[in-house]
């Protein structure tokens, strides 16, 4: 969740959530076999191509990882959010921010 337009140099809030099981690798199934770890291990937010916020996530982050953080509106540009899963798959989302 990102506002559509922001005044220059104002601070705006970004709320990002992804649906994900966040399997910790510490659980076992009914036969006693360990369920392999599969979590979102990194979230990156880029603004106009520059990294402005990053979170390295470990097993203890809740399922459906939620992140809320604040950025300063410096210029018109694309906000890019990407989540990286164990195994290397990434999920991305774009949002163009208009600075007035």
């Amino acid at each position, binding site marked *: 969740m990102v506002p559509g337009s922001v005044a220059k140099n104002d601070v705006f809030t970004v709320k990002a959530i992804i649906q994900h099981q966040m399997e910790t690798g510490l659980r076992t199934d009914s036969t006693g076999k360990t369920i392999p770890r599969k979590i979102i291990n990194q979230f990156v937010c880029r603004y106009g191509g520059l990294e*402005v916020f990053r*979170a390295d996530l*470990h097993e*203890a982050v*809740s399922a459906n990882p939620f992140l809320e*953080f*604040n950025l*300063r509106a*410096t210029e018109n540009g694309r906000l890019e959010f990407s989540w990286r899963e164990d195994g290397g798959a990434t999920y991305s989302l774009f949002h163009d921010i208009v600075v007035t």
Partner: protein
Amino acid sequence: MSLTRRHMLTSTIGTVACAVALLTPKRARGADEVEDFLWRLTGRKATPSNRLRLVMPAEFPTGYTVPMSITVDSPMTEADHVKSVRVFAPKNPLVEVVQFHFVPGRSLSSVSTRVRLAAPQHVVALAEMSDGSLLMAKAWVAVATNGCL
């Protein structure tokens, strides 16, 4: 009950002894534990600081999704900013929770998320500042049901 000198003396000694036994060692041990933990983990000395605030509920019904907010007082300029904040849950089977990275100018030094806690414990946050100092804050969280990790 008559208020005699003997009564006053014994009750005072009793109260003081209780206070000493209950408060001081526990409090001292609590602080030492966290500092020892960070020392073992990072090999560096962290300073408890009010500039770093770790806000979590003191009691929460479930250990699966405990809300957590972190704020660092910082101008976030090139010369003075927060580089990163790490969070640890020492009583979890895997103590590392999350690490946030900030950049000066564009990001503000605050973030919220939700975490899992395997037991009631002190959650510890450690902020690395641009001048190389380490700030530390902790929050006691009692979870009613432990989050499975």
